[in-house]
C-alpha cells in the first residue's frame, strides 16, 4: 500500500515499522472500596514518579543534541508533575469520593490545565498541548502500559507516529532508526527539523498512516517524493534498494564538491551561504561549504535570555564568536524580528489580533530605540574584522530604513566617542519581504548596500494568506508568477546600482527553484546548511544562459501550474547539459 505525504527530509530507507500509537486510552471509572483507597493513592504516586523518571531520561538523551529551549520544556513538566496541589486534589478525590486513580488524575489535570490557561501566562498557555502529552503519559503508567520505546536493534527500524512530541524525540537517537513518517505535522514541525539534523529521510502529513500501519510490518520511506510504502512487494523493495544506493552515491559525489563554489557551466558564480539560528549550526554550515552566513536570525538570543533582554555584551560576544568562526567570510545578521510573538506580548507590548500584519520586526524596534540600540551597538562592536553586515527585517517604507540608519549612525557616533573599534563602513541591507518594498525597490537604492529577499513572508503577503492557517496553505505557492515578477523587479532595480540580491527564504533551498532564481538575476542564495550540497550541485549542472531563458519564459506564465511545467520541461531537457 502506498501512502502520500509531504517529504521533509530527503533520502530513501526501508526497515521494520515501529508504530508509536498515541491511543486515546479510555478512562476506566469505578468506585474504590474504602479500605483500598490508600493503596489507590499510592498507585497514582508511583505512576507520577515513573513518568518523572521517564521524562528525566528522555531529557538526558536529548541533551546536547537539540535546542536548549526544548530541554526547558522538560523542566516545566517536572514542576507541574511534582505540584503538591495537583497531588492533593487527586488524593482528595480518591479518599473522599472513592474515585479510581485514572479518574482522579483526569480531573486534577483538567483543573490544572484550566487554571494555567486562565493564568494569563503565555509561558504555560503555549504549552497546553504539551500538557496533554504529559497527562497521557501518566495515564499510560497507571495502566501499567509500557512506553512504546524503540529498543536498539540490529535490524533497521522506521518510526511511524501520529505526530512526534518533543518528549518522544528521544526515541530517534537509536542508530537503528533509519527513517520516520508521521500522520500529522508540517515542514516546520519538530519531526522535520530533527530528521534533517540527523540526515535521515522523513515524510510528514501522511493521511491514514496510523490506521494502516502495524508494528513489524515492512515499510519503505521515500523522503524525496513523499511516499510511505507499507508491505512493499519484492519488486518495490528491489527498486528502492537501488534508489537508496544511487542516492548515497549522489550524496558522496556532491559532498566531494562541497567546497567548490557554485559556478554555472558557463562560468557565472553564485554565492551560496547558510541561514543559521543557533551557534552550534556553524560547524555544519562550514563543512557543507557555506561561503558565510546570509541570514543569522538573532531572535534566539532574545528567547534564550527571556524574560530579560540580552545586554550589549551578550550581543557583541555572540556576534564576535560567529564572525570569528567564519572569517574571512561575511556574516549577515538580521536585527530582531519578533514582536507579534507571545514572548513580546507578555514582556513588552500587548499586541493586536494579527501579529503578522502588526507591530513586529523594525516596526517594533523603531518604537523601542532603547532595545534596538543595544543590538546595534553590539553588532558594531563585533565589526572590527569587517566581515559583518546588518540587515533590517520587514522594511516597508524608505522612511523606516532611514530611521534605522539614523539610529545606527547615533550608535556609531557614541562608540567613536568611547574609542571603541568598529567598521565605519559596515554594510547595511534590507530584507525585501513586503510587496510595497519589492515593487519600489529602486527607491531604497540610495540607502542600502544589498537586498535580501525573504520569500516566505513575501509570498504570504502577496497571496494574502496566513502561513499558519492550514485551510489556505494550498495558496502558498512560490511558483506563482506574482512572486517571480516581484523577485525580478528587485533584481532589475539592484542592477542599476550593481548591488547584490540574495534570496534567503525556503525557495533558495529548493534545488529545482535555484536555477530559476539565478535566471531572474539573484546573485546569492542563502539556505539551511543541509540544502547547500543539493543547491550547489543544481547550479553547477546548468548554464547561466539557460537559467535566463527559463526565467524569461516563466515570467510570461499566468499561473503557478504553468511555471511548474516550465521548470519541469527545462530540467527534463538535459538535467546536466547546456
Amino acid at each position, binding site marked *: 500500500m502506498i501512502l502520500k505525504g509531504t517529504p521533509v527530509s530527503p533520502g530513501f530507507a526501508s526497515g521494520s515499522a515501529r508504530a508509536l500509537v498515541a491511543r486515546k486510552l479510555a478512562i476506566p471509572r469505578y468506585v474504590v472500596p474504602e479500605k483500598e483507597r490508600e493503596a489507590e493513592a499510592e498507585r497514582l504516586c508511583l505512576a507520577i514518579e515513573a513518568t518523572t523518571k521517564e521524562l528525566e531520561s528522555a531529557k538526558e538523551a536529548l541533551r546536547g543534541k537539540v535546542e536548549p529551549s526544548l530541554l526547558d520544556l522538560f523542566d516545566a513538566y517536572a*514542576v507541574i508533575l*511534582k505540584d*503538591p496541589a495537583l497531588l492533593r486534589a487527586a488524593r482528595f478525590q480518591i479518599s473522599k469520593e472513592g474515585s479510581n486513580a485514572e479518574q482522579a488524575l483526569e480531573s486534577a489535570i483538567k483543573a490544572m490545565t484550566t487554571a494555567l490557561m486562565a493564568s*494569563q501566562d503565555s509561558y504555560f498557555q503555549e504549552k497546553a498541548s504539551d500538557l496533554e502529552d504529559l497527562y497521557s503519559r501518566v495515564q499510560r503508567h497507571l495502566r501499567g502500559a509500557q512506553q512504546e520505546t524503540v529498543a536498539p536493534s540490529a535490524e533497521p527500524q522506521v518510526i511511524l507516529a501520529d505526530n512526534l512530541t518533543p518528549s518522544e524525540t528521544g526515541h530517534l537517537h537509536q542508530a537503528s532508526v533509519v527513517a520516520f513518517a508521521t500522520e500529522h505535522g508540517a515542514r516546520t514541525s519538530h519531526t522535520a527539523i530533527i530528521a534533517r539534523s540527523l540526515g535521515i529521510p522523513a515524510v510528514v502529513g501522511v493521511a491514514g498512516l496510523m490506521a494502516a500501519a502495524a508494528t513489524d510490518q515492512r515499510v519503505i520511506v521515500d523522503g524525496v517524493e513523499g511516499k510511505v510504502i507499507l508491505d512493499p512487494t519484492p519488486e518495490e523493495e528491489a527498486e528502492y534498494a537501488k534508489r537508496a544506493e544511487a542516492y548515497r552515491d549522489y550524496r558522496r559525489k556532491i559532498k566531494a564538491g562541497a567546497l567548490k563554489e557554485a559556478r554555472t557551466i558557463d562560468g557565472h558564480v553564485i554565492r551560496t551561504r547558510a541561514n543559521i539560528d543557533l551557534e552550534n549550526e556553524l560547524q555544519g554550515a562550514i563543512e557543507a561549504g557555506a561561503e558565510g552566513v546570509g541570514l543569522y536570525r538573532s531572535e534566539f538570543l532574545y528567547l534564550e535570555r527571556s524574560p530579560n533582554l540580552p545586554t550589549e555584551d551578550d550581543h557583541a560576544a555572540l556576534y564576535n564568536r560567529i564572525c570569528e568562526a567564519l572569517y574571512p567570510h561575511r556574516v549577515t545578521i538580521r536585527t530582531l524580528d519578533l514582536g507579534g510573538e507571545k514572548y513580546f506580548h507578555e514582556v513588552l507590548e500587548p499586541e493586536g489580533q494579527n501579529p503578522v500584519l502588526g507591530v513586529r520586526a523594525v516596526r517594533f524596534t523603531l518604537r523601542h530605540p532603547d532595545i534596538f540600540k543595544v543590538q546595534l551597538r553590539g553588532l558594531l562592536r563585533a565589526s572590527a574584522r569587517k566581515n559583518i553586515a546588518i540587515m533590517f527585517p520587514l522594511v516597508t517604507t524608505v522612511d523606516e530604513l532611514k530611521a534605522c540608519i539614523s539610529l545606527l549612525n547615533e550608535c556609531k557616533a557614541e562608540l567613536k566617542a568611547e574609542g571603541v573599534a568598529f567598521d565605519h563602513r559596515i554594510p547595511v541591507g534590507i530584507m525585501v519581504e513586503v510587496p510595497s518594498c519589492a515593487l519600489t525597490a529602486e527607491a531604497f537604492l540610495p540607502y542600502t548596500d544589498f537586498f535580501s529577499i525573504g520569500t516566505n513572508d513575501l509570498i504570504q503577503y502577496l497571496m494574502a494568506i496566513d502561513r499558519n492557517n492550514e485551510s489556505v496553505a494550498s495558496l502558498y505557492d512560490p511558483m506563482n508568477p506574482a512572486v517571480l515578477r516581484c523577485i525580478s523587479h528587485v533584481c532589475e532595480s539592484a542592477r542599476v546600482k550593481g548591488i547584490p540580491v540574495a534570496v534567503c527564504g525556503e525557495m533558495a533551498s529548493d534545488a529545482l527553484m535555484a536555477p530559476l532564481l539565478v535566471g531572474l538575476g539573484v546573485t546569492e542564495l542563502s539556505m539551511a546548511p543541509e540544502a547547500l550540497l543539493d543547491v550547489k550541485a543544481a547550479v553547477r549542472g546548468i548554464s547561466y544562459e539557460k537559467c535566463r531563458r527559463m526565467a524569461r519564459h516563466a515570467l510570461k506564465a499566468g499561473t503557478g501550474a504553468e511555471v511548474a511545467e516550465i521548470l519541469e520541461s527545462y530540467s527534463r531537457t538535459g538535467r546536466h547539459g547546456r
Partner: protein
Amino acid sequence: MTRKELVISNRLGLHARAAAKLVQAASRFHAQVIISTHQMSADAKSILGVLTLAASKDTPVVLEVDGPDEAAAMKEIESLITSRFGEE
C-alpha cells in the same frame, strides 16, 4: 513560625519562570511556606497556587514559613524575591 512582608519587585511579577524558581526554592525545605497577597494565600510549593496569585510587580506579599528549617527557608526565599529572581 516566621513571618515577613515583602514586595514583588521584578518587572514581570510572579510569572511562570519566577514562579517556578519560587516553587523550586520552597520545595527544598521541610517547612511549610505560605505566600499571600491581600486577596489570597497559596502554598509556595505549588506552581499552580503561586500562579493563581497573579502577583504583578509592586504587589506586597506576606511570607509565612513554619517548620524546623524555617529560618533557612525564609532567608533563601527572601533573597530570591529581593534579588528580583535574578532578572535584571
